């Protein structure tokens, strides 16, 4: 027979588990594990142009070159969202989602920010973003400036 004490412990465990669940959702929703300032600098570049249309077209062309499929694009908001997924019988699906936003930075520049998600986790390392902006530079014929 199961002792009373064991039953009580089991009952206590359930709310604890529920609580733990709440915390992880909260953490995931606001993703506070990396310093926001640092991440913003990794994900952003400034371009010496004010031509929003040309910049957005270059972003879309770059994503298409990289084999992404477009999910959403809005000129007014300056947002482009795209994703790339591949799977095979022998391969589990791998997926990469990117959202790129364009907004003015001062009088003479545009700020491009990219957010990537890989296999359901945020991408926080600098290298993938560097690669993306290198590809974008070629399509823009402009240099991407690091911003703080």
């Amino acid at each position: 027979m199961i002792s009373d004490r064991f039953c009580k412990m089991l009952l206590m465990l359930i709310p604890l588990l529920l609580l733990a669940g709440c915390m992880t959702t909260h953490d995931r929703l606001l993703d506070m594990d990396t310093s926001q300032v640092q991440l913003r600098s990794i994900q952003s570049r400034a371009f010496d142009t004010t031509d929003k249309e040309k910049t957005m077209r270059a972003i879309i062309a770059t994503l298409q070159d990289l084999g992404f499929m477009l999910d959403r694009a809005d000129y007014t908001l300056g947002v482009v969202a795209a994703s790339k997924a591949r799977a095979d019988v022998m391969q589990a699906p791998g997926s990469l989602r990117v959202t790129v936003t364009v907004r003015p930075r001062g009088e003479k520049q545009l700020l491009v920010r990219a957010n990537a998600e890989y296999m359901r986790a945020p991408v926080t390392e600098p290298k993938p973003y560097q690669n993306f902006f290198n590809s974008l530079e070629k399509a823009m014929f402009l240099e991407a400036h690091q911003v703080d």
Partner: protein
Amino acid sequence: MDMSRTLRIRALLLPSLLLLAGCAAVTLDKDLNLTPEMFAQRQIQTRRFDTTDEQKILKTCAALLQDTGFNIDESETKLGILTASKERDATDPAQWAVFIVGSFFGVAIPPDKDQIMKAFVTTRPVGDSGNQVAVRVVFERIVFDTDNRIKKIEALSDPKIYQSFFEKLSKAVFLEAHDI
């Protein structure tokens, strides 16, 4: 006893290793970097038309996709983009034969059932004075098996598909399609 246990563990390890290798299908180092293969794809998927009317080309693309059974998902004329998709049957009799034979030996791979086909079109003015419009189309498909699981996501890279798309497009706009 110990030997058989290690063997069993090894047998379990193998499929998980295969799955791990599969995760490399889309990777962070590879898929945000332009490779020569990607440029080769661009060549196949792009044509130029002698016109200044980008909107007309985009409209014709929309009509052509509709004619071929696609539904438009997203469009933004100002940026020259259009995405469309259609759901179709993906049943392959050969796969069913393999499935039936395989199930006798206990190694049944569920056969393909449905597929979602996607198209992504972009247009942009090109040339020194913007007197040409470049059109690029990319096709992709997602295949589901009889258990309704994703079995395959692949880019359709057969040049013939793109040739026939552009042939239809040039007929529809009464313009000749040039290679880039």
